[in-house]
């Protein structure tokens, strides 16, 4: 009971710092307008699964960038500044795990909740009957696209903990995002020109949506590699295990640093 109260206090403090009025409202607006900016699916597709896959990928395209901006603002810049100025140490009367959980839920949890909420709202405006008919594809598409962004988030979180500086973490986080994006593109091109299935599987481990798209035969990779749905699901689980490991690493490093 007391643990809950302590967590709630520290969560209140972090949410208040991360989402001063009207930041949350602006991000909600950007999520919603971004969803519809590219919200037209491929109208020539005649099967539910591929149609929903393309529709959801388009709906998520811009909002995922908005989510990354939110992560860079709250996690890289916000947490980096807190670490740099010693604000985190002022929370030390609270337990380290409470501080970490509050930061995690405030920066990533709220941003993700808002993202998913707006996406579901948009999806129910566009094609409510098709959501339930293709619920498997809907869930897999969301999980695989969010997986890539969460992986970037986890790496940005680790970089922020190492650098402990607001502006430096923001710049490094942006560079990490660009570097990973370019590397994935380069490895994909290499895999396609060399017909390397292993390279495509490695890419899918970091960005599982590529396996799902290839499974539906909607990507250039489909001619080289057509994974089964089980294979795509295994790669997705692998991706989330890497994310969990990176966040655990961050948690361990954060708690150790706070206690030092």
């Amino acid at each position, binding site marked *: 009971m007391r643990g809950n109260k302590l967590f709630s206090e520290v969560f*209140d403090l972090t949410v208040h710092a991360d*989402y001063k*009025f*009207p930041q*949350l*409202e*602006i991000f*909600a*607006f*950007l*999520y*919603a*307008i971004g*969803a*519809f*900016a590219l*919200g*037209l*699916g491929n*109208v*020539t*597709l*005649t*099967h*539910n699964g591929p*149609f929903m896959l393309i*529709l959801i990928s388009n709906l998520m395209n811009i909002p995922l960038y908005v989510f990354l901006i939110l992560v860079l603002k709250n996690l890289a810049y916000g947490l980096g500044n807190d670490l740099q100025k010693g604000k985190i140490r002022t929370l030390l009367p609270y337990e380290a795990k409470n501080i970490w959980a509050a930061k995690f839920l405030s920066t990533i949890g709220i941003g993700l909740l*808002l993202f998913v909420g*707006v996406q579901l*709202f948009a999806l*129910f*405006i*566009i*094609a*409510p*009957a*098709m959501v339930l*008919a293709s619920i498997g594809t809907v869930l897999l598409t969301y999980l695989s696209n969010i997986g890539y962004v969460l992986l970037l988030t986890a790496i940005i979180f680790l970089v922020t903990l190492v650098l402990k500086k607001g502006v430096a973490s923001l710049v490094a986080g942006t560079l990490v995002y660009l570097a990973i994006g370019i590397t994935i593109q380069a490895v994909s091109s290499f895999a396609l020109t060399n017909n390397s299935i292993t390279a495509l599987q490695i890419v899918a481990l970091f960005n599982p949506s590529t396996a799902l798209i290839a499974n539906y035969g909607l990507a250039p990779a489909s001619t080289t590699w057509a994974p089964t749905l089980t294979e795509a699901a295994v790669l997705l689980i692998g991706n989330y295990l890497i994310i969990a490991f990176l966040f655990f690493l961050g948690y361990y490093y954060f708690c150790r640093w706070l206690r030092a």
Partner: protein
Amino acid sequence: MAESLKRWIIFLARIGGVLVAISLAFYLASFIPRGSLYPSSHSELLLSGKFNLDATPSLYAINPQLGMKIIFTTNKTLRMQVFSLNYSDVEKWLNDRNQNATVLAEFEAAYSGDLILRQNISSGATTFEYFPPKIENATVIVLNPTPHVAAWSFNEEDVEAIATPGSFSLALIIATSLGVVLILPWLTSTLKEKRRKESPT
């Protein structure tokens, strides 16, 4: 207790603010223009008791983002039916039979589960627009049930839209009204507090 209530009021107001922001975005998105694909038109005479078949202009299946729009102009009252069936399958079924009202009644009985819409078209111009809730084929059958020859023309196109105007309006009403309701307690308490501070006592 008062402090806890105040926190709840602020929390609900923030959710309300988020909903209003989302509805504003939906409102702006509803202005994204619709696209028109494969426009075509034809006109002909339809004998008494006979019918005519037509598919969507693109021959693709239609879906929640690809609807069909037809403008009929006729000098008699015709009956239009839309079936969620593939055009070539319907054509194949009807090919060996006479295209009259009795055959159409047999077809309707055999495929009653695939009937999406049945509507009378009065003389003059009638616009018909249909966006299916899921991916569907659509074949339009127009019957002349009158004892006279009917002259009619048929302008059709596929319409590409992010969402139907009706679903946008519904979402806007729900999100805006819920948002305003959640903001109201915060607004009234803030105004009360302001008045209390301004009063001389």
